[in-house]
């Protein structure tokens, strides 16, 4: 690899994948075939490549923002599978289904293969020329760049580009990001994303944080959860209580799932504080004052949680410390979401968890590569700007707002108002279809990048306090399509249009990245005397580099003074609360065209290849709905038709529809599957942060008279074992001896 004339991509080339490469059509042909297939052979081959034996190259997963470190299994020039990097503090060698499906994003048959100008294939030179033309004479303030979460050197380049354009309009949008939580955390603990230590807690009370499914860094939290559940741990087996109106994967794994009335999470938190006080825990005066009015009886009435339950929970929290209270998307998606989050954060303060299970995290020492995290408020402001005709040229990368913006925002119409829209896209999704110019991206398995995760997990042991890391994404195989380019390369080319001489030393993004990394060798754990090539190779082979991060500090000064928690008001016309459910595999729908994800059943309903609406059996009985009824879910902003699924894990006042389905474009596996729940969300905003409140939509449900057989993994008896107690068994914790287990 250190040979000068050796281009790394050479051996990643797919060469003659006959017999040894893939065994297609396994059976049938039983004879020896002479001379029909070609042997995999190479011109040159590094000594570590042995045919039929896989090589593993470290890289970083791009399927969600957690940024797990992965190893790509490469054989005969093809990447076959993503496996976890065992040394990574984030995922510790593990993977989730979404991450594993990354290879299907790479090999996807529906990828865009060449630049498209209004649907016509053009060359890259022409495409870049068109961009230069269109930017000609446009003021910086008239250019907007919409991205999702970003970090690393691509972000640095983007920053440079925006500077060159003289634009400050970089909008970072994520449809399902925990944006309210960040703000609330900042207020309560002083850091927006502290390290949660589920593994150290004896009790975890999670207000709708689906940390095993789709929340922040699920694989990392799953690791912590595995520790937390170990009976042989010094703290003993941990207890998980999940409080949320719609059961998430985490709720399904809780010792106690509490189906709270939607929106009343903050009330319940204060009720628990109140009960804790009654149980004899010392409560700081301001908190005591704030929670004084929330007697268990009142709280019980508002939240639908029994008094007994609240008291039991308080007793458990008092007895078993340290505990950890988490705020998740289910609690923050309201107009008073920030208030909810603040009330819940008080619990951590009261219970003395801050500093114990809520730890300070560190951020990378280079601000230009630190993650820009997306939120929904930025989309709203972009939308407002578009509506006002402020932006002439709009770039979008890695986001699909036409699909995921609430219909009430009328984003699609506003987007059309911009003169020239450029989408950097891997698929021809809804946004790319609405764009004028589509530039095809390389997949994450062909591209170079660095990634700094927002949630900075740290390895065990000393030195974890100031730990920060930067992960590397490197090509795992040769480009499938010669006419695709990496985002870094495109940005570099665009920069060269503006300032050719400043960037002329960099042939491509790889060169830029390499030089940027080598320049900061020392900060990245190397010595100044290290050979550049050796250092670079070692870094790549590790897949990530630890850095001495800028450590933050957590404070326990959350104030309880300005809490205003509204009581729930009944909506006569739209009596049910719609909860858009975020599933671990589908998330916001950007991975909907990966068939493994479509075919892997939703863990709770086991439904595949379609969306559904979850209804509590009691509500369904009232409405006369049975499983498989096609129903119309109507809000003030829109209507969707989908199949009804009776689900015990949802509050009777709520219904839930998964997000990510209902694509009208994107590819053969995503198109036309299910209904898009984003399209029917009301435009209600969190009062403090301006975030779109996802759970604030009231709906009504009506039957259409049609009925289908739901396509799902579970059989007609549902989750019943039909009296067979020896299939999936559950025992009470005090009935087993967990402490001596191996």
């Amino acid at each position, binding site marked *: 690899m250190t040979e000068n004339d050796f281009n790394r991509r050479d051996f990643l080339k797919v060469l003659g994948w006959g017999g040894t490469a893939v*065994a297609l*059509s396994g*059976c049938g042909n039983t004879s020896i075939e002479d001379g029909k297939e070609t042997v995999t052979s190479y011109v040159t081959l590094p000594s570590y490549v042995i045919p039929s034996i896989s090589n593993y190259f470290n890289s970083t997963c791009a399927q969600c923002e957690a940024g797990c470190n992965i190893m790509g299994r490469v054989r005969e020039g093809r990447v076959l599978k993503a496996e976890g990097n065992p040394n990574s503090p984030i995922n510790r060698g*593990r993977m989730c289904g979404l991450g594993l*499906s990354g290879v299907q994003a790479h090999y996807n048959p529906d990828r865009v293969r060449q630049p498209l100008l209004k649907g016509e294939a053009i060359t890259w030179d022409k495409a870049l020329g068109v961009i230069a033309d269109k930017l000609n004479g446009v003021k910086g303030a008239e250019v907007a760049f919409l991205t999702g979460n970003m970090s690393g050197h691509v972000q640095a380049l983007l920053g440079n580009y925006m500077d060159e354009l003289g634009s400050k309009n970089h909008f970072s949008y994520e449809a399902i990001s925990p944006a309210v939580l960040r703000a609330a955390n900042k207020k309560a603990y002083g850091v927006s994303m502290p390290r949660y230590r589920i593994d150290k807690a004896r009790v975890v009370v999670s207000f709708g944080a689906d940390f095993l499914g789709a929340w922040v860094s699920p694989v990392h939290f799953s690791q912590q959860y595995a520790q937390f559940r170990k009976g042989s741990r010094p703290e003993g087996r941990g207890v998980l209580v999940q409080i949320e109106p719609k059961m998430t994967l985490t709720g399904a794994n809780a010792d106690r799932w509490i189906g709270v009335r939607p929106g009343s999470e903050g009330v319940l938190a204060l009720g628990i504080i109140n009960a804790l006080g009654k149980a004899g825990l010392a409560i700081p005066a301001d908190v005591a004052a704030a929670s004084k009015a929330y007697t268990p009886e009142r709280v019980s009435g508002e939240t639908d949680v029994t008094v007994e339950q609240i008291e039991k929970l308080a007793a458990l929290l008092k007895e078993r410390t340290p505990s950890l209270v988490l705020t998740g998307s289910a609690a923050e998606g309201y107009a008073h979401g920030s208030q909810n989050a603040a009330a819940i954060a008080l619990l951590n303060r009261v219970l003395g968890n801050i500093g114990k299970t809520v730890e300070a995290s560190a951020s990378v020492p280079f601000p230009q590569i630190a993650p820009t995290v997306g939120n929904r408020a930025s989309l709203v402001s972009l939308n407002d700007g578009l509506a006002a005709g402020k932006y002439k040229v709009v770039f979008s990368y890695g986001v699909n707002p036409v699909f995921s913006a609430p219909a009430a925002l009328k984003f699609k119409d506003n987007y059309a108002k911009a003169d020239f829209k450029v989408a950097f896209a891997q698929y021809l999704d809804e946004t790319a279809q609405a764009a004028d110019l589509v530039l095809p991206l390389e997949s994450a398995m062909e591209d170079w990048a660095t990634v700094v995760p927002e949630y900075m997990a740290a390895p065990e042991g000393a030195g974890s306090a100031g730990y920060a890391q930067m992960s590397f994404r490197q090509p795992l195989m040769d480009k*499938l399509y010669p006419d695709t380019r990496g985002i870094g390369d495109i940005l570099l080319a665009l920069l060269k249009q503006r300032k050719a001489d400043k960037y002329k030393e960099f042939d491509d993004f790889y060169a830029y990245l390499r030089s940027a990394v080598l320049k900061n060798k020392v900060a990245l754990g190397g010595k100044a005397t290290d050979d550049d090539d050796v250092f670079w190779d070692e870094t790549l082979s590790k897949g990530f580099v630890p850095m001495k991060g800028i450590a933050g500090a957590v404070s326990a000064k959350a104030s309880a003074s300005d809490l205003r928690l509204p009581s729930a008001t009944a909506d006569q016309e739209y009596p049910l609360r719609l909860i858009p459910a975020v599933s671990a595999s589908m998330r916001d729908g950007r991975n909907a065209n990966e068939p493994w994800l*479509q075919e892997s059943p939703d863990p709770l309903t086991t439904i595949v290849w379609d969306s559904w609406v979850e209804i509590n059996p009691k509500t369904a009985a009232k409405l006369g709905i049975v499983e498989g009824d096609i129903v119309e879910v109507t809000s003030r902003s829109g209507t969707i038709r989908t199949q009804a699924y009776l689900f015990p894990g949802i509050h009777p006042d709520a219904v839930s529809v998964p997000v990510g389905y209902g694509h009208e474009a994107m590819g053969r596996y995503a198109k036309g599957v299910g209904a898009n729940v984003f399209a029917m969300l009301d435009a209600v905003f969190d009062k403090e942060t301006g975030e779109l409140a996802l759970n604030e939509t009231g709906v009504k449900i009506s039957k259409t008279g049609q009925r289908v057989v739901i396509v799902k993994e579970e059989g007609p008896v549902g989750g019943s074992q039909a009296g067979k107690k020896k299939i999936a068994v559950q025992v009470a914790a005090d009935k087993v001896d967990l402490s001596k287990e191996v």
Partner: protein
Amino acid sequence: MSVSNLLENWSKFRHTHPVDDKGHPDWEAYPSDIKWAMSIDLDACTGCNACSVACYAENNLPVVGKEKYSHGQAMHWMRIERYWDESAGVGEFDADKGARFLPMMCQQCEAAPCETVCPVGATNHTEDGLNSQIYNRCIGSRYCSANCPYKVRYFNWYNYPEQEKVWPEPLNQQLNPDLTVRTKGVMEKCTFCKQRTYTARNNAKTEGRPVQDSDVQTACQEACPVGAITFGNLFNPESQVAKQWKSQQVELTKEVQDKDEKEGNRLRGYRILEELRPYPSVMYLERVRESAV
């Protein structure tokens, strides 16, 4: 050939393998020093489906699509089952204590009901304790599936690679070359990642040492975010799986475990449908729930 073999093998194979008449293992007769086994901690399992997707990736499983899925023709070797509490009665579901998840795949039974009934001998017991499935030998009578108590055998109802075009170019480049893509009319099932155990055994043999835990992980085990799956050689007392089986007092060739007869048994290892005597090689650990809350 056959008569001399008969005479030669007669005495060798008169006795049953590996379960002799007394109902406990005749390990002496076991032809190798490896018995692959698994244990799955349901208390850790979160039901996230990562194992199942990993299995799709590793074992070239076809994605059949909605239409065929609706006909029950899904090809997931590892399926995640989700059960509810039924405190109020059968079919009356109660979500207060969450759900229970159970990853189900071929249990690699020691006395597998599927093996004896295959008319062509396409499924046999291997010397390392697996229940093999020889795709090319299969004629598709589906008798094995009919006789499987767990219903974990999956039949190729269609010609997925060629006629159904399940792997359109370039999706087919992802296929794992270590095992074939099965064509229509063939039964298939979980193999405990045969290609991985094969490589592990091969490497260990080349190095002249027994197989260790660190040599091999199944794809599901490797992916599992909570590490609920343990896999290894049950005959190696140093292996994690053997330790777990031992500490849970689960013995491979018993249909009723001694510990289950005892009062106040504080262990949680069990095997599914043990009473049918297939002697499954997968031990599950009961899900635990705190009752104080």
